[in-house]
């Protein structure tokens, strides 16, 4: 199992994803944004950071990096792609996932561990039972997910909502549980096929038990198990 972790200029969580995946016993290597060959990888991760400084819309420049056309092809062929934080923003800009990520409702950067509820979804990156509450840090200024009501209805119907912000006990507060104001408390979504997954929280930060916890581990192990199953 070999993860490819893309480095855009301004990425800053790529080392953490490498650390987390290797700690779990997988191979993981960097992929430079200018590369156009990603054939050697089983899964691609777009890590967090501030690609190109994010001086215009987050992810808006990175989607034009040479590697991205390969990532699109890889995903269309069913290859698993994970976008974390800035990676999610890039996937949205690249239209690999629906919707957009706006500035947080409070107009402030938020770095905080939050409870997240796993939803029943088509996502191949997650095999936790629906209703599971995972505690994972968020770390962003633009995590306020928005999409049209039609898109939302369609996503719900097709099982594309993967993670929602929630309260500690897994319930959703009547006024919303998303610290950033995200529509329908959405923290993570996948495409219809379930192989492209974008989320604002940082699962790689809660893989190493020495720092923070292990709630992020399933988000990396599930895809490996899925690929192993497909291979059988």
């Amino acid at each position, binding site marked *: 199992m070999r993860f490819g972790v893309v480095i855009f*200029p*301004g990425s*800053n*969580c790529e*080392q*953490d994803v490498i*650390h*987390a995946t290797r700690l779990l016993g997988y191979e993981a290597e960097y992929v430079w944004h200018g590369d156009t060959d990603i054939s050697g990888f089983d899964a691609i991760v777009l890590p*967090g*950071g*501030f690609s*190109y*400084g*994010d*001086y215009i819309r987050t992810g808006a420049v990175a989607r034009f990096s040479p590697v991205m056309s390969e990532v699109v092809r890889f995903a269309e062929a069913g290859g698993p792609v994970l976008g974390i934080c800035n990676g999610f923003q890039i996937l949205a800009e690249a239209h690999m996932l629906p919707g957009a990520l706006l500035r947080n409702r*409070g107009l*402030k*950067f*938020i*770095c*905080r561990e939050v409870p997240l509820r796993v939803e029943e979804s088509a996502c191949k990156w997650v095999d936790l039972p629906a209703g599971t509450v995972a505690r994972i*840090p968020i*770390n962003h*200024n633009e995590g306020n997910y928005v999409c049209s009501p039609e898109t939302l209805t369609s996503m719900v119907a097709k099982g594309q909502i993967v993670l929602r912000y929630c309260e*500690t006990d897994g319930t959703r507060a009547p006024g919303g549980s998303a*610290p950033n104001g995200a529509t329908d408390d959405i923290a993570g979504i996948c495409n219809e096929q379930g192989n492209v997954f974008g989320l604002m929280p*940082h699962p*790689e*930060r809660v893989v*190493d038990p*020495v*720092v*923070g916890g292990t709630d992020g581990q399933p988000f990396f192990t599930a895809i490996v198990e899925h690929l192993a199953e497909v291979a059988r």
Partner: protein
Amino acid sequence: MAELYADLGLTAEEYARIVEILDREPTITELFMYSLMWSEHCSYKHSRKALKMFPTTGEFVLQGPGENAGVISVGDGWAVAFKMESHNHPSAIEPFQGAATGVGGIVRDIFTMGARPIASLDSLRFGTLDKARQRYLFEGSVAGIGGYGNCLGVPTVGGEVYFEDAYEGNCLINAMTIGLMREENLTRAVAAGPGNLLLLIGSTTGRDGIGGASTLASQEFDEKAEDKRPSVQVGDPFEEKLLIEACLELLDHKLLVALGDLGAAGLTSSASEMADRGGVGLDIDVTKIPAREEAMKPYEFMVSESQERMLAVVTPRHLDAAQAICTKWGLRSTVIGTVTDTGRFVVREGEEVVADMPAATLAGDAPIYDPAMVRPAYLDELQAFDPMTLRHPEDPEELAGVLLRVLASPNVCSRRWIWEQYDHQVMLNTLVLPGSDAAVLRIKGTDLAIAVSTDCNGRYCYLDPYVGAQIAFAEAARNVACAGGTPAAITDCLNYGNPEKPEVFWTFFEGVRGLSDACREFGVPVISGNVSFYNESFGRPIYPTPTVGLVGVLTDATKRATSGFKDPGDVIVLVGETEVELGGSEYLKVAHDLVSGRPPALDLELERDVQRAVIDAIGAGLVKSAHDCSEGGIAITLAESCIIGDVGATLALDDGLQPAASLFSESQSRIVVTVAAADTDVLTDLLLAHEVPYSVLGEVGGDSLVIEDKVDLTVSELRAAWGPTLAVLVGGEVMSDELHEG
């Protein structure tokens, strides 16, 4: 020229000295360059003599003061570089960019040494938040620090903030960064090898920040301060992130002879200091420098403080390889000159020579002053005041009310509103997050960790500049000790008023003396730092504020402690003793609106013994929580440990003191630790062996903090007072869990 020098901040004597060095009138370029290099900010001309008091050596010191940052060895071949710097005046004018570029500057100082920046801390001071301007400065500075550090991917793991009227016209933004490297990768900014090339890497050069070090950093503020906005630089953290990666890659491939960052006084400072250290000359052609504006004058190129630029020395043989790495990272790199053997700093505009000076005179020949000093008159009156002559609460209800008010004080309350705006986890090294006494960062692949804290109580320094500076050191060391770290070295940021005023200079001298004595007693060297003078507005100086940034080492990262209480039944032990010391206390300010009296006394030997005892106890795995007593006294220490641990405690303070003094006295050298009941005897034996005073206070448990005969409050009540203060004051969102959950 003669008319210009005063505008540039030079005195008549200094100008005469320049004429003497050159044996002629200086050109305008030369005059600008000297004026910047001889400014207080760059030359330390008022402070240099006093700073010689600092101990700067030790067996672990790989690089002491005089470089871009100090470096110590921490074991297993690993070294950490760190330094703290002020960006006070730019932030007082434009808080977001001022604070952001403060972070950018100190981060460059760190990777210049060959170290990857792994953590930042920020020590902040503002006026009180009931004033709109102060809220603007506070919110803007925090956003600027976060905006820059978050983008870089360098976690901001700690710091401190105080709100006092004394900082109203002159806020303090002191930024500290720590970098990690293998010892053999230590790089110095020493130009060498005539014929080698000067490679300018990074941003283009514009007119931003012209004279930042002289007209902004080295003068007091008055009603014209707003006009100085053009002297504030604008930061580009993306460019800096690329610079970090490119420079570390260049150093990794051994392609550079030397590397220096362009900070205060821009190219002039960077180049002349590199030349001075290497004893060589330089020849620079300003027409080669990529400009972001048209028709720039040579002196503008030479003193511009445009951000995100680095100056490297490369051999001609390595030029192509070095430029290829810069190009890979999307960075400009341009050869702008050469190293020469003439000892002259020559600046050309094409063919025309516009400056030609002995290189060493810029960095090395700045005048050194021996400023007059006199003990300020205010001290006698303030120190004569005895807080015990006031009426103090006695009954539990009134004491509880005061406790809640002190807990809610902006100087004591939760800092979460601040640190949640900072990425404090990226790089996955942060073992102890913000909110404890010190942040702890692991060194991956080893058993090692470092603990870091910044501290200074300006009130104490105002009331006694000598003792206050010692306490700044003691508290930083104590915070690190509470995490289990043995203090290794410090950096400092010495923020004072106008040194040309004898009363101000006396407070500075006493501060340096106090810090030096404390460092010597602990055997902890000063390896880097920064002096920031002229922190005055409308003639009123700030409180003397010698901020200490201390790094300690944990040889076993698993043996560490945090400040929250852990399990019901754990026994609470106070290491140290409480005296009646309400002078300069937060209680005195909150309950009586006074900043007066003598600050707490500090017995350095006792302080050291208390810290060593606690470090040993943590190292032995005995300690379940450790939290020092500082602002607000032991009542606040206990309340915070309850809130953070989300558990109550029942105890008695049998010190025989007046109840308010017992609860709120700010006596030094005290640490509250908890221990599993079964280990209590082992702990007390250890404390006895260290010959430190201690008392067993009670035990952890329940939903309330119950201090016999004095306080009975639920943890929810404590949290409701402590949690939301900052969010409420800035009119922001109050998180539900600031009021309820742990």
